[in-house]
């Protein structure tokens, strides 16, 4: 099956010199993405407090993929991480809101806004 998920991890500093880990997803996020998504997330250095999820290169996202994101957000919630997202189409912004996960990750229109808005 094509379009396997890959996740690129980047460490950035915001203008205010805050350390942020960015997870850039590529391909599809579906039931087969569990290891790729959660391994990348769990591989972040201990003490990571700010995370940005970049969906701009995601081709296809379904409810099983969203369930994996919920698991990620659940783990982040437990450790009080702040997780911002950007790069979702208008349609998937709506879907995220319908499902309710916008309560646990705020959606930003682009990367600079997602980075700038960390407290």
């Amino acid at each position: 099956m094509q379009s396997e998920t890959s996740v690129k991890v980047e460490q950035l500093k915001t203008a205010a010199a805050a350390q942020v880990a960015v997870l850039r997803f590529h391909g599809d996020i579906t039931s087969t993405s569990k290891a790729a998504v959660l391994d990348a997330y769990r591989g972040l250095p201990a003490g990571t407090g700010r995370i940005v999820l970049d969906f701009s290169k995601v081709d296809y996202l379904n409810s099983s993929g969203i369930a994996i994101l919920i698991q990620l957000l659940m783990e982040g919630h437990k450790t009080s991480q702040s997780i911002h997202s950007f790069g979702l189409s208008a349609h998937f912004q709506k879907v995220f809101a319908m499902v309710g996960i916008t309560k646990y990750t705020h959606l930003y229109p682009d990367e600079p806004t997602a980075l700038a808005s960390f407290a």
Partner: protein
Amino acid sequence: MKTDKSLSVEQRKEQRVELRLPSKLGFEKIAMQTAASYAAILGLAPDRVEDLKTAVAEACINAIEHGNHGDEKVVVGVILTIDHRRLEVKVLDHGSGITHAVLPPDIDKKMLGEEDPRGMGMFLIEALVDEVEWVSNPPEGSYARLVIYLDREKR
């Protein structure tokens, strides 16, 4: 030519399009694209085409996983028709169908691990299309019937 017996000369309804897929995860993307181009040809607005794509993908995933138990040799059928500016998609499987009601996901419970993180497919289908119906008729099979109105604003 060994003609495919199932390819009948006459169709019951004009503009009817049928698709059959193996029960293999990932193939729902084909149904999604087929439905999207059918809807685009008929003039469905682009944002509603996106609604339809997600709803059709979720219905096919359920047919593949739950209806046909991922047996690749078993077919998922998708039948697209248009009538009075209502676009209908039937997604057929060979399982026994749905018995329970559709529950909206409780994100707080999911976050606390009190609810399965999955279980959002049927909710999304209901939220995205204008009408939905789940019909089961064992042993023949079951289907989800999704309807989207060509002239309705976005959900």
